[in-house]
């Protein structure tokens, strides 16, 4: 009970800070956060597999919105392109190719619900405790972006590309190798012969 009280004591002022308050951004955040959490819960609880994939669309779209709020437009658009445009489609393909029934399936969960909830709550407790303990009410400053954002937000995109093709060129090349390996692996696994 102590820790719960502690968390509440820490969280409540979070919601009502007395510092400057960027109203539109916070409203957007609040709305999409609530929607995202609801959708995420639906992803792991719904009894309809296709619905789960579609709820996942909502979550991933919300994550993209988060990126926009955090001024990471390029990552946000990548999120839309890769996750919504490709990964979700892959999921839907996977669902449809494995003959997901139209409508509700009853046995989508195993018998570990209680363990799952327990573990989840424990993890969340630890995580939030650690986060609140370390960051408390630190404001987002965007310190790292100051000076790189030009008109039309071109600057940040350019900064990202400079970082990828300069500092992180080798990881990038490794990544392309990984994608190639994944491509071959997926074909080998899925082909019928």
């Amino acid at each position, binding site marked *: 009970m102590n820790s719960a009280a502690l968390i509440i004591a820490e969280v409540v002022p979070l919601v009502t800070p007395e510092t400057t308050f960027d109203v539109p951004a916070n409203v957007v955040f609040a709305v999409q956060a609530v929607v995202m959490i609801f959708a995420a819960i639906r992803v792991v609880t719904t009894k309809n597999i296709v619905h789960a994939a579609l709820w996942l669309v909502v979550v991933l779209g919300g994550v993209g919105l988060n990126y926009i709020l955090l001024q990471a437009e390029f990552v946000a658009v990548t999120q839309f392109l890769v996750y919504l445009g490709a*990964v979700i489609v892959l999921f839907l393909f996977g669902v449809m190719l494995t003959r997901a029934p139209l409508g509700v399936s009853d046995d989508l969960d195993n018998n570990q619900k209680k363990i799952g909830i327990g573990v*989840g709550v424990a993890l969340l407790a630890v995580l939030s405790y650690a*986060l609140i303990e370390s960051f408390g009410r630190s404001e987002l400053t965007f*310190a790292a972006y100051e000076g790189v954002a030009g008109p039309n937000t071109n600057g940040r995109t350019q900064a990202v590309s400079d970082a990828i093709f300069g500092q992180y060129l080798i990881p990038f090349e490794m990544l392309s190798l990984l*994608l190639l390996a994944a491509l071959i692996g*997926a074909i080998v696994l899925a082909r019928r012969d």
Partner: protein
Amino acid sequence: MLLNQFLLLSAILFTIGVYGVIVRKNGVLVLMSIELVLNAVNINLIVFSTYWGIAGQVFALFTIAIAAAEVGVGLAIVLLIYRNQRSVDIDELDEMKG
């Protein structure tokens, strides 16, 4: 905006994803839950990139690419399981049982 509002959101998503990984029987659903976890991590990367520099965004991009590869291979595996077992319940994959 506060740092923590994003971080806590990410923590919640992470937890929900973990719950899904533990509880869901259907292979595709487990993969979806893993996506939740990965996205939660990505939010963290982006949040901290506002503090520490553009590297966070770069790594978020890398994570997205790797996640796409992971889904591709993961779904291939699920399809293979489906073909061999006529079902994608990973509960039934207990040949490793002691």
